[in-house]
């Protein structure tokens, strides 16, 4: 924030110095009768409440990365009662964040989605289990009561259980881990960047639970991506490309200055009176950044959906019967698929 102010001030001083030149240019422009194009309005619908999961977009907005590309971006907060896919369909939003699995399910359901960027390439899905219930390996979940998210979220888990030949007693899991904390279930699904830490923040020590990472178990699939309708890409090819670029620039800045990004996130959360604490948001940011930017360059290209991952995800969903068909990789990513330089 301070930096921004300083930059603004510095620019102001320069402007002041070059006032004469600017005035001249302005007059010249008017004389020529040409004007700068009006910024393209883009409304981004998030799939959940404001939190570090979306830090890159807030940073891009705050730092002016969108406006620098001629975009006038509004970020719409999500929540348990909101479906970003529905917002795209209804025209309430232009771009939405969504799990790749969710996007594919929606596309299969008839929403003409195009992927602008695959932001989170490494899975954050996990299983948390009570150690005192003697759950040390995935196989120990056999027959045990476990809460699990529904639909596309459950697909990697169910694939895992099938592969391991186990059948936990599944109970639907919604947005809280209370059932797990109150011992209503012995295990639950969790996001590395969220529920795992929420459980810790509810006073459960790390050595009291076993955390299985779906990625480590080989059942990790790409998660958050930026999606829009085909019509949007067709209408504003430059804008959709620019939006993806600016968003990834925002994420890069968040990686470089996590504390600054954290402050921006906290400001967002506080503005809408969301229960949030810095420790949790810091954990979330640190975790998600690891799943956006790989430790080794070979792992994946940040912001890009690999053909292989796309194929794996499509196979998973087809196999689970969550989709009947999937578009080609090229069709799904579109011609205007954002590439991060």
């Amino acid at each position, binding site marked *: 924030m301070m930096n921004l102010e300083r930059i603004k001030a510095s620019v102001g001083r320069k402007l002041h110095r070059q006032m004469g030149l600017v005035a001249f240019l302005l007059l010249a422009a008017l004389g020529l009768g040409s004007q700068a194009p009006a910024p393209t309005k883009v409304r981004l619908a998030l799939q959940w409440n404001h939190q570090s999961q979306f830090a890159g977009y807030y940073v891009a907005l705050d730092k002016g990365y969108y406006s620098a590309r001629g975009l006038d971006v509004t970020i719409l907060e999500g929540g*348990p009662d909101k479906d970003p896919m529905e917002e795209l369909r209804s025209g309430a939003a232009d771009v939405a964040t969504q799990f790749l699995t969710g996007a594919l399910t929606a596309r299969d359901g008839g929403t003409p989605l195009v992927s602008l960027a695959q932001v989170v390439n490494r899975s954050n899905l996990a299983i948390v289990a009570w150690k005192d219930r003697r759950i040390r390996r995935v196989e120990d979940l056999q027959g045990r009561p476990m809460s699990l998210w529904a639909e596309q979220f459950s697909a990697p888990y169910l694939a895992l259980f099938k592969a391991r030949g186990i059948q936990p007693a599944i109970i639907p899991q919604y947005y809280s881990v209370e059932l797990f904390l*109150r011992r*209503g279930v012995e295990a639950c699904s969790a996001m590395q960047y969220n529920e795992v830490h929420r459980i*810790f923040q509810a*006073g459960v020590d790390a050595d009291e639970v076993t955390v299985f990472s779906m990625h480590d178990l080989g059942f990790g699939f790409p998660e958050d991506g930026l999606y829009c309708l085909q019509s949007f890409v067709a209408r504003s090819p430059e804008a959709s490309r620019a939006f993806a670029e600016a968003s990834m620039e925002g994420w890069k800045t968040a990686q470089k200055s996590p504390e600054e990004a954290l402050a921006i996130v906290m400001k967002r959360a506080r503005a809408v*009176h969301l229960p949030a604490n810095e*420790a949790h948001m810091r954990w979330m940011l640190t975790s998600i950044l690891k799943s956006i930017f790989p430790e080794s360059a070979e792992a994946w290209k940040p912001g890009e959906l690999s053909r292989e991952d796309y194929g794996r995800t499509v196979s998973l969903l087809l196999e689970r019967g969550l989709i009947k068909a999937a578009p080609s990789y090229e069709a799904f990513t579109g011609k205007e698929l954002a590439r991060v330089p």
Partner: protein
Amino acid sequence: MFRRHGIAGRMTLFVLAGAGAVLALVVWASGRHSKKLLEQELEGKARALAAATALRIEAVEKSVTGTADELAALLEKVPIDRESVYVLLKESVRRNPQVFGSAVAFPPGLSGPEDTGAAPYAWRTGGSVSVKDLAEGGYHYEISDWYALPKVLKRPVWSEPYFDEGGGGILMATYSVPLLAGENGDRFLGVATCDVSLAWLSGMLSSLPLEHKGYAFLISPNGTLIAHPTRQFIMNESIFSLAEERSDEALRVLGRKMVKGESGFVPFVTLTTRTPSWLAFAPVSATGWSVGLVFPKDTVTGKVRALLLTQILLGLVGFVLLFFIVRFIARSITRPILQLDSATRVLAGGNLDAPLPTIPGEDEVAHLSSSFAAMQKDLKAYVEELKDTTAKKERVERELEIAHSIQMSLVPRTFPPFMGRKDLEIYATLDPARQIGGDLYDFRLLDDDHLLITIGDVSGKGIPAALFMAVTRTFLRGFFSEQLETERVFSRLNDELLQQGDTSMFVTLFCIVVHLPTGLCRYTNGGHCPPYVLRASGAIEAVPNVGGLIVGILPEAKYKSASFQLGPGDKLFFYTDGVTEATNKANEFFGDEGLVGALEELRAAPCQDLVTGVRARVGRFAEGAEQSDDITVMAFTYWGPDRQPGA
């Protein structure tokens, strides 16, 4: 080192130092003790208050749980159509002021595949109670904790507190009871709930009688802060998130104890100001919450400090009082001493009449004062006496001086005595001692041919002795003018002196009459030491003793005379016992040996040199010792008639 201060100063100093040490010890000990006591007291109070607060919260929650339990029991047993449920709920909310809202949520599909579920809800708005179906408007209540938890857990559940979205951000908690039917209670019919507003909690907690800067907080079973003076914390932070933020492992351990339903009293650091404090915590069993009461340690240390400050201030006041009291006492003791001191200074200056201070009482100083008075009296008497004695002594000395001057006026002191006489030479000295005196010598020509030489020593001293000497001399001159027989003169003198009637007065006397033409000497000795004859040849001989008592003792004393011949150049040496009995510091007498030795050395010298020489040797011998007797030395040289003038 304290000697240079007065008694009063020292006394004040020592008493104050002692009192100061005692005061410091008392302050220190009472500080420790009261801190311990206050901490114990605080612990008891804090624990009790925490438990009482927990009970107060529980009492409110119980009234809510009772309402929900009754509602559930009713719905489980009596089938009621959904419309009637609204009436029931409305009534239930109206009747129970603690209940903010109440709902019954039915599972979708309960009455058939078309059943999308329903959740009749009644809640307070302003002064009245409104109703609605929560299922309307796309609200998926079946994914809410208040619905899902009791359904799965098959027991009543208190939800984690939450901000009511519709109710203007009021903090709420919901108590949900599952409606179970069937033999084993395994048929789930829905959930009955009661909402309770937690808005009253903050007010209640902030009205707790906590010490200055103390505060209360409340955490949920997950450690989430439900109530805390820092509003920012409420629902945002849990005790565990704060522990993580502050890397405070101890806080996390404490949080775990609290959410496990333990109670305790532990050291604590406040979450915002990092103030060292005590924390008392107690569980609200019904909801699984935990009440924490924070008491900053400085409320205890502050009290102790205030107590100590009071003690120190009182002590200082006491000190000042003590200072004046001690000084007053010390001065009351030393004032008479000082008065005595200045009085004795005047006394010592010689003014014995200086008035002494009168000190009343029977104490040591009064005794000292009276002793001084007695001393003064004695001194005065002594000085008076001394004055008397001195006067007497002065009189005696005056007398002695007179006597001496008489004595000295009686002996011839002009040398040479006989102008024109070449046939004889004579010289004498008399050194009177101060105390005992009475030597006398005399020489006179009785006629042209006869020379009388007398030496003697009168007993006694002072004027009587001097007068006795004068009398003796007068008698001798008188008698020798009548006759030359020395033994007769002695007898007559003896008689005359005895007739004076004073038997204590007597005299040793030696008289010799020299017939100058021939050198024949006739002499008589009355108890005196005989003179020496120093022959021109060099022989030294004592004049032969003829016997004879001291003159003036016995009436019938007989005196004899004898004679011997002097040749030209022979000398006679006379002396009194002051010479031979002269003593040195070792109390040895000069003695006859000393005298003869001196004579042998000086025999060839003229009379004057012989006399002064002997006298000088006696003086050297006695070196510094007091002269106790008159010393008289006299020498006579007989040159004979043939000696020519100028020879």
